[in-house]
């Protein structure tokens, strides 16, 4: 079986000569362009196969997601330790004089507020893991397609059966894109 560039050239030459006999200068130029295009495709295929995509999907991405899961677990553990300490302080506060007790309670409240970072970072890491998995899936599709001579059409996209709540569950926005509480209050008030 001829190599892809040769096959393209051969096919085009056959079509053109079957129509007009000898090739005109324009047809020769067109043939050259098609041949160059076919060679470019061959080069891209060689470069993709040299990427060792198997390593990425078999090793790099699973390791990266495991590392991120470990980050999540460690921060959750640390946050719960902090909360344990806060709860002890809060339970001790009533035994203190009024002034120091108020200071302790205020500090504990601020620590609780700050600890909500764990939820936000967890959601952000979840988004990164999802992105990594999407990259892995795309890479696999590219290698599958280039590795096959089949010209089967792309699979149709499955209909989105998610609920509106699931479709809009995108997690935290980056600081520049996030709405502030004041902006959300203003938006809600606009409905009244």
């Amino acid at each position: 079986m001829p190599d892809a560039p040769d096959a393209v050239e051969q096919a085009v030459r056959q079509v053109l000569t079957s129509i007009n006999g000898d090739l005109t200068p324009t047809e020769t130029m067109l043939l050259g362009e098609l041949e160059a295009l076919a060679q470019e495709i061959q080069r891209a295929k060689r470069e993709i196969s040299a990427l060792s995509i198997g390593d990425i999907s078999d090793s790099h991405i699973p390791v990266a997601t495991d590392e991120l899961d470990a980050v999540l677990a460690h921060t959750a553990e640390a946050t719960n330790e902090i909360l344990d300490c806060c709860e002890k302080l809060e339970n001790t506060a009533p035994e203190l004089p009024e002034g120091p007790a108020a200071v302790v309670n205020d500090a504990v409240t601020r620590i609780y507020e700050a600890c909500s970072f764990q939820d936000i970072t967890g959601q952000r890491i979840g988004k990164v893991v999802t992105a990594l998995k999407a990259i892995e899936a795309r890479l696999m599709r590219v290698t599958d397609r280039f590795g096959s001579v089949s010209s089967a059409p792309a699979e149709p996209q499955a209909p989105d059966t998610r609920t509106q709540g699931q479709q809009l569950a995108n997690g935290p926005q980056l600081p520049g894109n996030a709405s502030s509480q004041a902006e959300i209050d203003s938006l809600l008030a606009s409905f009244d």
Partner: protein
Amino acid sequence: MDKNTNILIVDDYKTMLRIIRNLLKQLDFNNVDEASDGSEALTKLRAGNFGLVISDWNMVPMTGLDLLKEVRADARLKNLPFIMITAESKTENVVAAKQAGVSNYIVKPFNAETLKEKIEKVMVHA
């Protein structure tokens, strides 16, 4: 504002449930129950007698928005005050929540004062 109100907090992060519970305790709300997603919350709401729901959005299998829609579609629960506390801060999310009947909306990370202010606001209108 009745401090004896039964409050259901809904979040799939145990740490977040713990933080909200502790903040509510500081506001003298001690009758607090928890659920880890919308389905569990709905079961508890239908079985119990709650005066306020404070829910996250991003949970599986049932999101906070889907829970809100179920609550508003339920004859017994439809007027229940419902506060969404979420990292979802896009306009389309706030609009979807409002259209579904949310009572108020708090964006994470939030502070205790915001939580107190929103609870007071929705309980007054309850």
